[in-house]
């Protein structure tokens, strides 16, 4: 059974989002997504400073099995990426919601209103 923390927002394409105390938004992939992908071996992150529009392909996560695109859930600018993933992409498997975050961005918090809450995402992956 996949973990779906109640305080996060989610997308149909299995990204999660968290509003940090400093107002930045952290984004990663869900426990369900990492389990589907299997052992991760490579992550291609965007560069800090890049601006994206919601729906853009912003990042690629690769497991032994396959490459998978990560889609930008909201529009905004990347301010920080998780450098630790370059050497240890498997952190995403072991800690998808904490140490395995992908990047932080500056965006309008209002954009999160349209995303799924934990219950809706749980229902989505149960289908």
């Amino acid at each position: 059974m996949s973990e779906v923390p109640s305080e996060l927002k989610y997308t149909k394409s299995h990204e999660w989002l968290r509003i940090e105390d400093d107002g930045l938004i952290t984004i990663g992939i869900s426990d369900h997504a990492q389990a589907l992908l299997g052992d991760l071996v490579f992550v291609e992150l965007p560069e800090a400073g890049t601006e994206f529009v919601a729906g853009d392909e912003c990042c690629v996560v690769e497991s032994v099995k396959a490459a998978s695109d990560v889609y930008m859930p909201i529009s905004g600018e990347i301010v920080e990426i998780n450098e630790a993933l370059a050497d240890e992409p498997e952190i995403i498997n072991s800690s998808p919601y904490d140490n395995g975050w992908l990047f932080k961005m500056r965006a309008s918090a209002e954009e999160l209103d349209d995303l799924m809450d934990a219950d809706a995402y749980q229902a989505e992956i149960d289908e």
Partner: protein
Amino acid sequence: MSNKTVLFDKHVEYKGKIVDFAGWQMPVNYGSQIDEHHQVRKDAGMFDVSHMVIVDLRSGDIKGLLQKLLANDVAKLTESGKALYSCMLNPNGGVIDDLIVYYMSDSWYRVVVNAGTAEKDLAWINEHAAAFDVSVKARDDLAMIAVQGPKAREKSFAVLPVDVVEAATPLKRFFGADCGDWFVGRTGYTGEDGFEIMVPSSEAPALWDELAGAGIKPCGLGARDTLRLEAGMNLYGSDMTEETSPLVSGLGWTIAWQPEDRDFIGRSVLEAEKAEGIKQKIVGLILEERGVLRGHQKVIVAQEDLPPGGAQLEGEITSGTFSPSLQKSIALARVPVEIGDSCVVEIRGKLLRAAVVKPVFVRDGQAV
């Protein structure tokens, strides 16, 4: 349409993650594909390969039939139990399938073919069998478990029936032995030592439990793919197809050209291809930068390996993955013969450097 092997319930019980593979519901892993890979390289693992099809050829001129159907020559098989790897070609020299044939006696050969191609293989074999008066029987009543790894033999001996252990103990590599309803081949698809054990389907679930109890861990198709790729073994449908000849698929060594009058299907096309000069070959690639090589990525021959003023030459990756043993990405690629010892691979628009090596990366637990 989705088939299940007789071990399907075991895969669920052992927490296998089930995926569709060639129309079969098979476990891709039982937790971690990488752990299962290392388990086979360092210790012992087992795979359900019951989706592959065992075909018994009995009576009539079996040797004559196989000398017609196969690019390799079964005349090499003189000792009972000896196995041979071969391609079965279409009249255009394309590969219908790759297979293993065991010679048991002049009136019994056993062939093992791929799951995804079994239907067309059987149709093709049957089409030619009548002229040689050979009876063809697909053994759907048998299951097959591959136990692989440096400790696979020793660990499986602890739980296999006594008569099977007796038959399997003296087996040399690439030999098989028949023991009543069971059959054991010292063969595999991982680059490690081990057995492929064929058993009556009804006995397979109990055998699975006993092998697991002996410390031979269940491994999924995911690990099977990284293991075979590290070992430089081709995968049908990726590294060779009906559209590619063995000569450009790293399988030239499996074609028996002698005797010259053996008229196997596809021979004349291969001879013409050879006479014209072979333009491509399969090489191994090791990525020198971060990333993962995958099938269909473009391979570009280095500028210094081109003839003066020559246009850019390109090839394509046929199978690529991340190698758990080498901790680097590796691939098999079909490339122009001009390629030198390094090249460039295009991954999502970026050009990354890769070393060009012989298409074998790991054998018997050691990097080569």
